[in-house]
């Protein structure tokens, strides 16, 4: 059934566990909404908060960060560092005024294809009900008062950028 | 010279009744060592062993109330009787760990439960707060030649992590304190074996067996006398000794002292203030023989 609003979800995942979990969901032919775009990393330790910020600025409506369960990390401590980094970063985004339902974290092991499908479906439905995230995209168009221009076609150019 | 150490004091019921000499010798000793001992005003029973077998909330509330009363008196809470010591410590331990029990008790005694004030046994005060060398210096009449079997009983070191007086299985605090007076302590196997405690009323047979083993082990180790830090153990070992001799045909004549009695004697307190008269097994011959009186 068609929806009027198709949310854009970005998933930052570690290749050893969650990416493999997503593969397993594939080999088991589990169906889930096609809104998620996966970006593969060697480890959640490699996922930099700047990527989350950039994704929001580029129009992502919801972001998922997922990796190995604590203790399973292929690189021993990558996910431990990531856990602390994201625990602090999400508080910063919340303080700036971002609704934390838009940013989700999870542990999905290589054997948990089902959990991957469940998380992605749940997140897609939740973001769909919340509607598009306009905070960052609206901000992209804003200008300092001195640089703002009123002519139409430059305005049009803005919209495409 | 002002008392260098000051303690609030919770004597407990036995020390006002059957264990009176434990209380008197303790006060005498602390006066001699210039340690302040100020009894907690209108304290009441800590519930000892029966209370917590009947209703745990009752026993915890009793002790919590006593602790609250003790807060009014300056200084850590000194306790002589092993049972009171064990109950107060268990209350602090349980209420410290379990939030819901704490709320129940606070409702029962309708006051805030205060767990901060440290509860200390006399042994702890003498060995650690006061210090063994100062104790040794305070000894005016060393108990040389007296061979003692120090008896801990069950409650002083158990259950692990609650009394935190000394190592649960291999305590040494009594040996240290006694040796500070110049006395000699003998290594023996039944230091921590149970004396039968309350069964002395309901099932005396058990007490005869257990206390008998203890006396036999002490005798085997060549001890002249036993030293205890609990009125209940004293009761069994002292009062039942005659009956055990009749039942087993063994000869013991082993006087059972409270540790404070011997320490007070060593620190120059006059013997007739130490309640030697009210002990069933007459200690006088032994004390004379060791020319301690």
């Amino acid at each position, binding site marked *: 059934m068609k929806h009027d609003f198709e949310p854009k979800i970005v998933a930052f995942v570690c290749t050893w566990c969650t*990416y493999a979990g*997503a593969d397993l*969901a594939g080999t088991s032919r589990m169906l889930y909404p096609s809104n998620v775009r996966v970006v593969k990393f060697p480890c959640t330790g*490699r996922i930099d908060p700047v990527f989350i910020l950039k994704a929001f600025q*580029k129009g992502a409506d919801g972001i998922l960060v997922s990796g190995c369960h604590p203790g399973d990390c*292929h690189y021993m401590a990558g996910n431990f560092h990531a856990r602390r980094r994201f625990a602090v970063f999400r508080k910063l985004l919340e303080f700036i005024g971002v609704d934390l339902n838009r940013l989700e974290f999870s542990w999905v092991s290589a054997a948990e294809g089902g959990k991957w499908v469940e998380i992605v479906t749940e997140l897609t439905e939740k973001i769909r009900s919340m509607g598009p995230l306009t905070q960052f995209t609206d901000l992209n168009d804003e200008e300092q008062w001195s640089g703002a221009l009123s002519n139409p076609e430059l305005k049009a150019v803005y919209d495409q950028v | 010279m002002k008392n260098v150490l000051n303690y609030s004091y919770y004597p407990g019921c036995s020390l006002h009744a059957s264990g009176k000499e434990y209380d008197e010798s303790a006060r005498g000793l602390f006066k001699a060592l210039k340690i302040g001992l100020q009894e907690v005003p209108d304290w009441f029973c800590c519930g000892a062993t029966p209370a917590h077998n009947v209703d745990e909330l009752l026993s915890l509330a009793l002790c919590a109330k006593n602790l609250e009363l003790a807060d009014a008196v300056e200084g850590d809470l000194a306790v002589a009787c092993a049972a009171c010591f064990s109950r107060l410590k268990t209350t602090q331990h349980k209420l410290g760990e379990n939030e819901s029990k704490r709320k129940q008790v606070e409702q029962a005694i309708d006051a805030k439960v205060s767990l901060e004030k440290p509860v200390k046994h006399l042994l702890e005060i003498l060995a650690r707060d006061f210090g063994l060398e100062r104790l040794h210096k305070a000894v005016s009449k060393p108990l040389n030649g007296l061979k003692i079997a120090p008896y801990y009983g069950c409650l002083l070191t158990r259950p692990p992590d609650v009394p935190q007086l000394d*190592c*649960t299985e291999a305590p040494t605090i009594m040996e240290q304190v006694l040796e500070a007076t110049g006395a000699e302590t003998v290594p023996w*196997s039944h230091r921590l074996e149970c004396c039968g405690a309350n069964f002395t009323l309901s099932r005396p047979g058990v007490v005869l067996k257990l206390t008998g083993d203890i006396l036999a082990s002490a005798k085997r180790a060549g001890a002249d006398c036993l030293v205890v830090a609990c009125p209940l153990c004293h009761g069994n070992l002292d009062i039942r000794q005659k009956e055990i001799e009749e039942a087993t045909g063994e000869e013991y004549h082993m006087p059972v002292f409270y540790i404070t009695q011997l320490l007070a004697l060593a620190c120059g307190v006059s013997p007739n203030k130490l309640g030697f008269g009210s002990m069933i097994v007459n200690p006088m011959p032994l004390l004379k023989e060791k020319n301690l009186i």
Partner: protein
Amino acid sequence: MSRIGVFICHCGENISRTVDVEQVAQAARQMVGVTYACDYKYMCSDPGQTLLKKAVAEHRLEGIVVAACSPRMHEKTFRNAAQAAGLNPFLCEMANIREHCSWVHDDRVEATAKATDIVHMLVERVRKNKKLIPITVPVTKRALIIGGGIAGIQAALDIADCGHQVVLVEREPSIGGHMAMLSETFPTLDCSQCIMTPRMVDVVNHPKITLHTYSEIESVDGYIGNFSITIKKKARSVDMAKCTGCGVCMEKCPQKKIPNEFDKNLGFRPAIYVPFPQAVPNTPVIDREHCTKFINGKCGVCQKVCGPGAVDYEQQDELIVEQVGAIVVATGFKLYDITEKPKGSAIKGYGEFGHGKIPDVIDGLTFERLASASGPTGGKIIRPSDGKEPKQVVFVQCVGSRAREKGISYCSKVCCMYTAKHTMLYKHKVHDGQAYVFFMDARTPGKSYDEFWRRAIEEEEAVYIRGMVSRVYQKGDKVVVMGSDIAVGVQVEIEADLVVLATAIQPRDGADTLAQKLGISYDKYNFYSEAHAKLRPVECATAGIYLAGACQGPKDIPDTVSQASAAAAKVMTLFSKDQLEREPIVARVNEKFCVGCLACKKVCAYGAVEEKEIRDRQGNLIRVVAYVNPGVCSGCGTCQATCPSKSVELDGYTDEQVMAMLETL
């Protein structure tokens, strides 16, 4: 990079069933930088790969995106194909449009749109890829074995037999470890000396093995393939070259009454001694604490009587540096000494068993020395107190093991078997003796283990009492054991002549300091942690270091030997190539921008980040920057995410590549 080829696979019809592959190819042709795009039924097939190679040549492609299955499936295949076509393999990326797209979506329009997006993301990514050359690290084909017990011996022999140099370091004067102390071993009761001594001799005679006994590891530097080990060889005061092992010095030494640690202080030894008769090397050592020559300068008998003049009091400790490529840690175990409460450790002592106070309460190894033919009593079971033969012996299982409140919660795995063996040895030596065993459960899982245990009960009539012992105390010359028999529900008191405690197995003292020197991790009991409990049990997470034997966890001799051979096999695979080739997905520091805050070093779990000094030509220190050792870095990238100025960059997952992918949203 503007000449990119996009190859869309049908995967039979796994992809083409829900994704309109032609449309995706068409869309790919519109993408900036894409000069060639096609779709094919089976890209991973041989014709598929040939198609790819031809296209690379024909269109002079500089980058490839293969839109097919998961990279975890065929990334290697297509990268090899690209390499074959003369393209650097890391300029080939895979777009997962099967597991992540066609298989999990059924709406053809949605799936095709998503596949196009995924391809677009990977095209943008590949435009930012750089050529990467696999990292080669030279490998010193020499192995270091730490610990000369059966594990170390087995690993050393395996590696040496394969033709590689081995350096075996043993802390005691002789190799042999705990196995040399044992009398007979379960389940076959063959005597440990007979099966081990030949192996020990093989070690000392093996041309490829350099043996350093009475030596310890001082420091470990370097990384996989290039370790530099500093070994402290303690002074034996005997010149090993000259000594013929005649033993005259040991006979003539006036000091006779020094308790022999090897015999658990039951027997005695002179000041100049060999731990046990079959010691390898058979050169004595002077115990400088007890030797009168070192205490007050008098005596010197051994030097006088030594024919070849091998005794040399002036010998000093010496530091030897060995270059090795791999390390096998086989430091073994020790029995939990319950005589007193170890300071500062969470493990509480066992005051109630009287071990250390009551002479007739001994532990398993002491019983082994009593039963051993080369032991202090020549194999006769006696009571250490009065030397009489014990008529009633009580064995107590699980002393320390499986006792959470005492700080050790694990099962030590071997005590059930060796206690059953002890009852047999006792029965064979004291026919009218009676053995009692207090136990909780009998754990006898090995091959013909349970039969061995049943034999101890049914044929050797050992009495097994299910229940724990509460206290042991001396009563006259007897040792009273108070315990419970929960099968019958009764308190039990046994007046025994001898009590043997099966105490828990712990790692050697100093295991944690050695681990810190090696940079390997260990658990809360100081057992060394394997890289993966099931799939990499003999490797450490730190590359190039392997584990064998009880230092990794309690285990019996069969398991120890098999682990030793497994570790040896791992070393041999490492040494099979001259160069150690590693995937070039490693971090690199941009020294111009690094400000030396070393945050990367703090988060690196592999210790791959070192401090590098930048000096001018006159040698003055300009500044300190971080340096990532490509041999050790495993490519997790945590350093780059932590570095504020991104001065350290993980090749293959650079910020540029990730940002390029995000731009396509």
